[in-house]
């Protein structure tokens, strides 16, 4: 029981570090949304611990960390988590690839809404570049599933 909390805390901090560390412009633009993926992963695998409030709080933390509009990411995190929790039984029976496709679709909508809240962008090329993060999410999800599974099993043994 305690090990699961430890795993959740550890992976959350890892996701925050990956989000905030400066690795250069290219990484900054196309990196997966590590924190969102982490929250959704735990929504699927530990729904009794990670729920809406946790997701909302993580969104708020992301807002503060990126100095964006306070509450924007929190709102979208809560909606994303609600959707994933509702469809959890379907999702946890699916393969990681199918899950990844679902997550990529969800994050495309997420990014579009986030853009809408922030107030628009001009050229369509910039929009495609902006949405590339959904594609990164698609690639990152199986990786995250594997790594987090390893972390969970290692920690549950101690």
């Amino acid at each position, binding site marked *: 029981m305690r090990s699961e909390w430890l795993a959740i805390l550890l992976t959350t*901090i890892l996701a*925050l*570090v990956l989000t*905030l*560390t*400066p690795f250069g*412009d290219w990484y*900054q*633009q196309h990196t997966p949304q590590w924190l969102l993926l982490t929250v959704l992963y735990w929504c699927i695998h530990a*729904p*009794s611990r990670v*729920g*809406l*409030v946790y997701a*909302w709080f993580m*969104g*708020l*933390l992301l807002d*503060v*960390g*990126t*100095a*964006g*509009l*306070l*509450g*924007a990411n*929190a*709102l979208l995190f*809560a*909606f994303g*988590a*609600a959707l994933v*929790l*509702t469809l*959890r*039984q379907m999702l*946890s*029976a699916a393969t990681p690839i199918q899950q990844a496709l679902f997550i990529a679709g969800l994050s495309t909508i997420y990014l579009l809404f986030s*853009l809408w*809240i*922030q*107030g628009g*962008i001009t050229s369509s090329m*910039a929009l495609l570049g*902006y949405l590339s993060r959904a594609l990164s999410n698609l690639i990152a999800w199986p990786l995250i599933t594997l790594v987090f599974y390893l972390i969970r099993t290692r920690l549950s043994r101690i």
Partner: protein
Amino acid sequence: MSLFESHRPGITKLMILVLASLMLMALDRAGSSVAMRINTGLGSVTDGIARLTQAPSLWASDITLFFEHRSNQVATIHRLQEENLLIKGQMQQFYDLKRELGHLKTLLHGQTTVVPNVLLARMIAINDSPEQRNFTINRGLNDGVRPGQPVIDGHGIVGQVLRSSLTGAVVIEVVSRKHNLSVNLGDTGFIGLLHGTGTRDALTMDRIPERYAAKVGDLLTTSGLDGVFPKGYPVARISQIHDDRGQAFINIVATPVADLDHLSEVLVLTAPPDAPPPPTQKTQQANTVDQPDKAMINAGKPPPPTHESLATPPTATHPTKSPSKRETTHAQ
């Protein structure tokens, strides 16, 4: 583990959270102190994490310095000593100019320029979004960094502090789409707003009357009218001029002079000289008397070019100001 339990989220809980976020967004847009407090509190956590991740690379650079070859170190020391002497030599001229300028300014409108307090800060995280380009520095409230303070590098204006927490502060760059600042257009005496575009190397300035003969390569310096950036700091150089035949206006594209691509250390002006003083009763009164005529003098600049040519020398020497501060204290 619990595949068959349904953990369907409660709609009430979701609605409460949605309302809470909407309220936060509204408060943040309105610039309320509650949003500010949340930013400061949670910002301490995120800035702390950013600072921790940056720590190993700092240790690594310290260790490499320790193992660096003796002759290299000696060479560096010699180079720095020579540079120091050179700067000191140039500074002597600067002191003289400064005295002269102060004298002239007191004759003109009873105001002298003050050398600002600067604080060296290291960049520890980048947090860009399409709307704004930000980065986090490792100095916060404890070092006297407050929202609104200007940030410069060795070449010119970088941006200003957006929010500050106990463990760090977030700086918004001048090239952000959201950022505007008031600048002087070269020697022409035109004062206008310079907008960020969201790309690293372009700032725009629109609708400049054609009679101000702007040229490619002209330097844009801060005008000091916005009350945030002190007067006379270099901001950008004109790179393109869009001259539409049908219009009596020209539009300008400028490249920032600050090296925004390779920032690692920046300077925060913790006591900007031209910033409006804290609103106490005494200063408030002084302000109402002082401010209008200052604005008039600045705004009514176009005709006399002599005034401009007097004001330009300090802009050229400004970038070397940071070492100068320490030099003065040593010399005396």
